[in-house]
């Protein structure tokens, strides 16, 4: 059964009603279980669980220490191209937006790589919009060949691909994929993805599975919190991660918790997740899936990110820029969204050390 088929089954289940029926007793029992099932996870995301956030935090902290130690892995994104054929209501790269667009030349990729590598970072996440005309597989493979000289781990956050394409990328040196479903709510998904190949919910949803089949070492998923009811998307994200963990035990599964940020086009989120909601989501995920990585990007402000360090986060971006060529050039294109934590890699490293954690800049080696 693919996760898509699972979703079709789950849609018969009234989540709102279930959340309202969760009592304190159910929450308390779930918090202290050694292995949590999907119903326990549901309970931890309920309104009733809000008052148990500190209790959940204590356990989440302990579980994260046991499984990952006092370390935070760092990476940075490199935007290769902001051309896009999709019209996503919430995204700055929306094809309808009249913004400065470009694709990095291979020479520019080399310059960006050099500058990023000087910060000591060894993990890179390369991103593109969805436009095969401007950034096709051959282009990505050529970029990976350059990146390999500077980085020991290369992840991609690009359009969804076929298994064979993922296999080619893995062979070239890619070891990770990030792909967000944005929202698991099918009707909401259809509403906010106005036009373009991204309208195909199922093809995107099953991309992590195709990557897993291809042998991708790390798979990072997530929903853009704020697009639909955050509780709903948090629950489905957890189930999706569990599904992938069960099906591809050799892969390291991780979850990002991005929230909508302001951008060109001024889309208003329907259901902005508060700081407390984000924390509840993170804690529930940690208790449900102790071994899953949790990523927080520079979409979140510096002080909030620093406070999350002890709650279950395992990975953070640093020194980020969402503009194409943004690490080496000034404002040569429009960014995807506005970042909140504008600190340099050195400053982020210091902040993590001050929290009593070790910033880890290298955690993989191309073999």
């Amino acid at each position, binding site marked *: 059964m693919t996760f898509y088929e699972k979703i079709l089954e789950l849609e018969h289940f009234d989540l709102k009603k279930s959340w309202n029926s969760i009592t304190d007793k159910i929450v308390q029992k779930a918090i202290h279980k050694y292995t949590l099932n999907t119903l326990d996870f549901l309970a931890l995301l309920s309104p009733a669980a809000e008052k148990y956030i500190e209790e959940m935090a204590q356990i989440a902290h302990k579980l994260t*220490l046991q499984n990952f130690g*006092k370390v935070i892995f760092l990476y940075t994104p490199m935007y290769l191209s902001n051309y896009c054929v999709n019209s996503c209501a919430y995204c700055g790269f929306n094809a309808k937006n009249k913004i400065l667009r470009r694709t990095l030349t291979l020479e520019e990729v080399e310059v960006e790589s050099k500058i990023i590598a000087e910060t*000591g970072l060894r993990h890179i996440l390369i991103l593109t919009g969805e436009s095969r005309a401007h950034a096709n597989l051959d282009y990505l493979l050529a970029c990976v060949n350059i990146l390999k000289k500077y980085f020991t781990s290369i992840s991609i956050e690009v359009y969804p691909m076929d298994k064979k394409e993922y296999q080619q990328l893995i062979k070239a040196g890619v070891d990770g994929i990030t792909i967000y479903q944005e929202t698991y709510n099918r009707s909401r998904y259809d509403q906010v993805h106005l036009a373009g190949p991204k309208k195909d919910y199922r093809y995107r949803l099953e991309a992590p599975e195709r990557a897993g089949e291809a042998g991708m*070492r790390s798979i990072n998923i997530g929903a853009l919190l704020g697009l639909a009811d955050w509780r709903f998307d948090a629950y489905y994200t957890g189930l999706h991660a569990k599904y992938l963990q069960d099906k591809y*035990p050799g892969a390291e599964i991780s979850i990002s918790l991005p929230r909508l940020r302001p951008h060109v086009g001024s889309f208003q989120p329907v259901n902005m997740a508060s700081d407390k909601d984000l924390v509840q989501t993170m804690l529930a995920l940690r208790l449900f899936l102790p*071994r899953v990585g949790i990523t927080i990007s520079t979409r979140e402000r510096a002080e909030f990110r620093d406070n999350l360090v002890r709650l279950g986060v395992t990975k953070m971006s640093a020194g980020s820029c969402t503009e194409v060529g943004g690490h080496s050039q000034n404002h040569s294109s429009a960014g995807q969204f506005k970042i909140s934590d504008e600190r340099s890699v050195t400053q982020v490293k210091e902040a993590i050390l001050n929290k009593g954690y070790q910033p880890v800049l*290298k955690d993989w*080696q191309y*073999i």
Partner: protein
Amino acid sequence: MRDVLTIGGKELTNRLFLGTGKFPAKSIIPKVIKNSETQVVTVAIRRVDLNGEQENILNYIDKDCILMPNTSGARTAEEAVRIAHIARAAGCGNWIKIEVINDNKYLLPDNYETIKATEILAKEDFVVLPYVSPDLMVAKALVNAGAAAVMPLGAPIGSNRGLKTKELIRILIDEIDLPIIVDAGIGKPSQAAEAMEMGADAVLVNTAIATADDPIKMAAAFNFAVKAGRLAYLAGPGAEKIHGEASSPLTGFLR
């Protein structure tokens, strides 16, 4: 008589091995090593950055220690072998701790792939220390494959749950003619002492020291515990009695 543990031709007088992956800062590792008096330190090759002066963990490990690079991240024997080759090329010596894990949920080792990797690397003159789930048949296969020691887990990595596999490890200690080093699961010094008392040749600890509020102090505590446990083993503890001695013996009439 000196109590020495010999592995791969090296004589060790301290039986606490140290893992390095989970410390709050690399800068405290030298003090931890000093306080633990450890002579063997394991490092994941995936973490080693030879190009970063400050970031290179190898710069924080006392040169007198034996470096035991590990193959963390390997999902198959083939990947473990490739990582071992990277370790050797990076100048990390010829000791290698094999970790082959294809299960990211529990981080349990793949014994079958581990045996395969051991066989290949032992032939290439590595001193091979395989990390395995405790199993007598697997341990025997590792002996035949040329392992220098066997490293059974006490409980899953990072779980701090102690010697949950005690009875299986005890069998390895009794039956296998190689050093048995309990690796993973030891959460407290008392559990390390327990492993040593029962006759383990050494223990490897990372999480319990690295995530303690004061890792330097905890390193010292583990050092004492391992020494105490070893001394107790050598001293030969009195026989354990499950039941007290009855005041009215059932066989008293035989007198």
